[in-house]
C-alpha cells in the first residue's frame, strides 16, 4: 500500500507539471493561435534560472520562485515581439515550426554548455523532511509542489474567467478586431498573454528543479506528453486543462504501480482511445 500511495504522489506531481504546462499552452493558443513548441524549452529555462540565481547571485528557492518566471516571461515577450507576431494571419502550422526552431536553438545552446547530465538543486531548508500521515510518509517538498501548483492553476483560472482583464482577454480571443475597436490594445495583450503562458512554464521548471534535477533536455520529452494531454483535454477550457493535467498524472502514477512497463506510454494510449471514442477531445470544441 505504501508503494501505491508513493506512486500516486509522484503522479500528482507530474500532474501538476502537466496542468501548469497545458494551461499555458491553452492560454497562448487562445490568443495567438500558436501551439508553443518552445514550451518545454522555457520550462527548462525556468529551472536553469533558479540554478543560476542560487549559484551566481546567491538567491535561494523563494527568490527563484518569483524571479525566474518574470525573467523567462520577459524573454518570452521579446520572442513574441520580435518573431511570433509576424505570423498572424498565416497557417497555424508555421507557428508550430517557428517555435520548434526556437526550442532547438535554446536546447542546443544549453546542451553545449551543460552537456546532457543533470545539475543538482537542493530542496530549500523550510521544505525539507517529511510528515507521517498515518497511512504514508509524505515528503514535505512534494506535498508543497502539488498544493502550490493547484493554487497557481486556480489563480490563473480566476484571473481569466472572473476578472475584468480576463474578460478582455476572452473577448479578444473571440473577436480581436471588435475588441480593438473598443480602444483596447490587443497586440499588447497578446504579448502579455504569451509572457504569462511562458512564465507559468518557467514556474513549473523551478518547482521541478529539486525533484528532477536541472537538465538541458528536461522539457524536450515532457512537452510531447503535454501535447497528448492537450489533445485529450482540448484547449477550449481553462478548467478542462487543469483537471485533465492532474487526472492524467494520477493515471500515469497508478500505471507505474500496477504495470510499470506501460508507464511511459499510458498517456499516449489514452490519447488514442479518446480520439477513437470522442475525436474532439473531452472538453474541446471541434477545431
Amino acid at each position, binding site marked *: 500500500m505504501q508503494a501505491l500511495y508513493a506512486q500516486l504522489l509522484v503522479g500528482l506531481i507530474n500532474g501538476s507539471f502537466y496542468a501548469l504546462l497545458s494551461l499555458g499552452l491553452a492560454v497562448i493558443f487562445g490568443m495567438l493561435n500558436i*501551439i508553443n513548441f518552445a514550451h518545454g524549452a522555457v520550462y527548462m529555462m525556468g529551472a536553469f534560472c533558479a540554478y543560476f540565481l542560487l549559484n551566481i547571485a546567491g538567491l535561494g528557492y523563494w527568490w527563484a520562485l518569483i524571479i525566474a518566471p518574470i525573467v523567462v516571461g520577459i524573454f518570452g515577450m521579446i520572442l513574441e515581439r520580435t*518573431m511570433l507576431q*509576424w*505570423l498572424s*494571419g*498565416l*497557417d*497555424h*502550422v*508555421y*507557428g*508550430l*515550426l*517557428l517555435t*520548434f*526552431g*526556437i*526550442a*532547438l*536553438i*535554446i*536546447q*542546443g*545552446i544549453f*546542451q*553545449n554548455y551543460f552537456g546532457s547530465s543533470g545539475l543538482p538543486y537542493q530542496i530549500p531548508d523550510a521544505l525539507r523532511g517529511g510528515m507521517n500521515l498515518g497511512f504514508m510518509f509524505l515528503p514535505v517538498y512534494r506535498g508543497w509542489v502539488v498544493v502550490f501548483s493547484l493554487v497557481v492553476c486556480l489563480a490563473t483560472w480566476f484571473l481569466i474567467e472572473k476578472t475584468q482583464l480576463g474578460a478582455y482577454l476572452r473577448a479578444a480571443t473571440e473577436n480581436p478586431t471588435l475588441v480593438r475597436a473598443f480602444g483596447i490594445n490587443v497586440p499588447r495583450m497578446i504579448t502579455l498573454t504569451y509572457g504569462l503562458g511562458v512564465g507559468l512554464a518557467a514556474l513549473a521548471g523551478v518547482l521541478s528543479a529539486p525533484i528532477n534535477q536541472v537538465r538541458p533536455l528536461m522539457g*524536450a*520529452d515532457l512537452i*510531447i*506528453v503535454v*501535447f*497528448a494531454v*492537450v*489533445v485529450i483535454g482540448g484547449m477550449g477550457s481553462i478548467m478542462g486543462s487543469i483537471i485533465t493535467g492532474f487526472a492524467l498524472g494520477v493515471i500515469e502514477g497508478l500505471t507505474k504501480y500496477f504495470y510499470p*512497463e506501460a508507464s*511511459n*506510454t499510458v498517456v*499516449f*494510449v489514452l*490519447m*488514442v482511445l479518446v*480520439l*477513437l471514442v470522442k*475525436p*474532439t477531445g473531452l472538453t474541446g470544441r471541434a*477545431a
Partner: protein
Amino acid sequence: MSTLTDDTLPVPPRAMRDEMVAFGIMAVLLAIVPLTGIYPFFVMQALCFALLACAFNLLVGYGGLLSFGHAMFLGTAGYVSAHALKVWALPPELGIIIGTAAACGLAVITGYISIRRQGIYFSMITLALSQLLYFIYLQAPFTHGEDGIQGIPQGFLFGVFNLAKPTVLYYVVLGGFLGGFLLIYRTINSPFGEVLKSIRENEPRAISLGYKTDQYKLLAFILSGTLAGFAGSLKVFVAQNASLTDVHWSMSGEIVLMTLVGGLGTVFGPVVGAFIIIAMQQYLAGYGQWVTVIQGVIFVACVLTFRRGIIGEVARLLRRSL
C-alpha cells in the same frame, strides 16, 4: 487564412514539360555520381532522406497535413527490414518488401487515428503516436534497445546484384529513389492528387462537392507512410544498422526541416532540402550540439523570411513549375 503553399498553378502542359526536363537533368546528374569520385555513401544516404522528404511532402504539400511523426515509418521499416535480413536471413528484396509492408500497416492504423483531427491537432497527434512507438521500440527485445540492430548483411538482390559493392548498391538505391519519386509525381498529377489539393485549399467545399475527404486523406497518409517506410528499408542497406535515432522526434523534425528548406509543395524541393541538410550534418559533425542550434536557426529563418523554400523561390523567379 492563408494556406501552407501559395503556388499559382501554371498551365498544366507547360508545367509538366518543365518538371519532366528537370527530372531528366536530376536523373542524369545522379546517375553519373559514381564516375565523379564523390563519396557514394553520402549521396546514397541523401537519396534515402530525399525519398523520405518527398513522401512527407506528398502529405503536407498536397494534402495540407503536417505530420510531425514521420520518423516512425522510417524507423519501423528499418527495424523490420533489419530483423528480417539479419535474424531470418531473408534475401534483400524480401527484406525491403516486409519492411515497407510493416510501414504500410502502421500507416493504416496511425492514419485512421490521426486524421480524426485537423490542422495543428493532427501534427500533435502524429508526434504523440511516434513517441508512443519510440517507447515501445525502446522496450521491445527485438530492437536491442539503445544498441540497435547492427552489422546487417547486405546480401545479393534477386540473387544477382552484390549489394556489398558500393557502386551496385548506389544504383539500386538510385533506382528505388527514382521509382518512388515518379510514383509520387504521378500521384500528385492524378485526379486523386487534384482532389487532395482541393482539400488542402478548402476542405468544406470539397466535402460539399461530394468528396469523402476523410478517405482521400487516409489514402494520402497511407501512401506517404508506405513510401517513407520504403526509404527506411533502403537506408538499412546503406547504414547497415537500425537504431532508435531513426524513430526519435528529432528525426521527424529533420524531415520537416528538409522539406521546408527545399520548399513545401514543390516537386523537387524536398530532394534539394535533403541534400543540403545531410551535407550540413556531414560537414558540421565535429561541432557537437551546435548542429542542433544551426538547424533551429534555419527553421526560424525559413518560417520568417523564406516560406517558399529554395525551389519555391527559384520557380517563382523563373516563372516555372518545379
